């Protein structure tokens, strides 16, 4: 196990260095760089949404709203108040977390699917409020945000998100969330405070969405209320479902695949979402746990596949 960890560490460092080198030498072109950044942001969004939808079983559709909170709060801090970037990122994330608690507490203590509508509504509330505040540019948005996000920041925060969610899921708290997903009544009977854990998972997801928003704002230097439309929330949901409800590595792979697909299908317009939506329904009807299900993609499964391959070859 220890050796595995070291191996993973080396691989992650190698990945970082290779991409950094690629950017420095210009092998990775600007268009590819944009997609690379979108990929990182999508991974953060998908993994954090998976914590809410996949691991805790609550349908949240307001990730774009939390992203907007993170983006605007951090942009105001760096651009208008001249605060350091790291502080701005965490301030944005904490603002999103607090919004998560405000939305989550009234809706998640109830049985039923109120969260889905409340989060959809929340996305609209946030956009409605932003449009009305002249200080942050109203409908025109904030322009000229310093471009602080580089590959190092993105990589670090993507890894931070992945490892934080992974460790959360494998902790007592995470187990409680999974128990709630599998059977809420049974979980309650076992003494789990279901409201507490649902709100915890939801606001934690919002926290990471806030980070994604802050990274986004400081890469594309222009944020507008229309940037954070419902479509973004749905994109994140598509990634979670494709990857598997309850699979972190699944979300990562799906986020990468969807980013590539988005770039490739950019000319299709609405047809792209028609295809995604159809896949969403088909997956839910035939494989409701998502493509990978709750399985994680690890080196061990790779090795096992290889062993099976050699065993089959012997036969």
């Amino acid at each position, binding site marked *: 196990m220890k050796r595995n960890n070291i191996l993973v560490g080396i691989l992650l460092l190698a990945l970082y260095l290779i991409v950094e080198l690629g950017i420095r030498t210009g092998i990775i072109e600007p268009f590819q760089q944009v997609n690379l950044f979108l990929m990182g942001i999508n991974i953060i969004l998908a993994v954090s949404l998976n914590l809410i*939808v996949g691991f805790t*079983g*609550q*349908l949240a*559709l307001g990730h774009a709203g939390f992203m907007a909170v993170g983006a605007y709060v951090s942009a105001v801090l760096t651009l208008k108040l001249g605060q350091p970037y790291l502080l701005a990122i965490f301030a944005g994330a904490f603002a999103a977390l607090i919004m998560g608690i*405000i*939305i989550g507490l*009234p*809706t998640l203590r*109830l*049985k*039923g*699917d*109120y969260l*889905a*509508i*409340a989060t*959809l*509504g*929340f996305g*609209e*509330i946030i956009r*409605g*409020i932003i*449009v*009305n505040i002249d200080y942050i540019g109203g409908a025109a948005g904030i322009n000229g945000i310093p471009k602080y996000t580089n590959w190092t920041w993105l990589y670090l925060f993507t890894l931070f998100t992945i490892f934080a969610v992974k460790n959360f899921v494998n902790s007592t708290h995470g187990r409680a969330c999974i128990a709630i*997903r599998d059977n809420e*009544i049974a979980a309650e009977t076992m003494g789990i405070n279901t409201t507490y854990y649902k709100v915890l998972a939801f606001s934690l997801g919002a926290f990471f969405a806030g980070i994604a928003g802050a990274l986004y704002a400081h890469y594309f230097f222009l944020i507008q209320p229309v940037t954070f439309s*419902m479509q973004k929330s*749905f994109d994140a*949901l598509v990634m979670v*479902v494709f990857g598997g*409800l309850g699979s972190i590595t699944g979300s990562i792979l799906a986020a990468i695949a969807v980013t590539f697909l988005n770039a490739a299908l950019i000319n299709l*317009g*609405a*047809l*792209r*979402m*028609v295809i*995604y*939506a*159809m896949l*969403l*329904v088909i997956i*839910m*009807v035939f494989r*409701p746990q998502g493509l990978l299900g709750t399985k994680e993609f690890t080196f061990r499964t790779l090795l096992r596949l290889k062993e099976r391959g050699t065993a089959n070859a012997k036969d």
Partner: protein
Amino acid sequence: METFIAQLLNGLSLGSIYALIALGYTMVYGIIQLINFAHGEVLMIGAYAGYFAVTILKLNFFAALLFAMVVSALFGMIIERIAYKPLRRSTRLAVLITAIGVSLFLQNGGLQVFGTDYISFPQAIPRVTYKFLDGNVTITSHQILILLVTIAMMLILQYIVQKTKIGKAMRAVSYDKDAALLMGIDVDSVISVTFALGSALAAVAGVLLGMYYQTIHPLMGVMPGLKAFVAAVLGGIGIIPGAMAGGFLLGIIEALVSGYWSTTFRDVVVFGLLILILIVKPVGLLGKDTREKV
């Protein structure tokens, strides 16, 4: 005072449209506990069906309305058959995600088929403006029509649910699905009929919305759909009179906010209201507390 009456009238026409949409939500929720996210898109299809009925088939307003209702009802039933029925025994989450998928499919399919432009909705009924109170308050023939059609639809629905055999079956299924099945009720067809009824009402709402705003668009159902859900929750989800009351109330609140404060805060207030009602009285205004069965 004049502004108040004017906004009240606006709110009543908008509210009746919300009430019609909310009825569909609440009936489906009452029977299979599903938030039918695609409901707003069924409304959009109804509006387009009405549009084509007037422009291409040259039907008069009421025939076009009927045509739209039939098209939407069929659509609702097809959606239920293809997307929701196979998931009758899966988790709630799977069904909800499917509903989102269907909604996205219809939204973007609509954009693909009908184009992204706003189409002006034909004025099948001449628009006459009546003035009273020294001309300070006006009411259009369309507003009157919206209100009258809505009331007629509600009466018909109330008759179907309370007095007919299928209505009785619907109430039985919503009360206890398994017991209804044991009593020999064909639950599947009752669910189909519920979707058909709700979708037909959505079509009416779609056509009326087209008349109210005078344009239609593939994404026209998204916001009214969401708001109508808020209306359904406001009145008490699963309760038919609750959806009517919630719809009217929400329409009036929205009109008053636009009239006295700002139109841009309209949506903020509506969704803020949802959060508020979930904190204060989650069962809705007309809902009763029920104990949870394990």
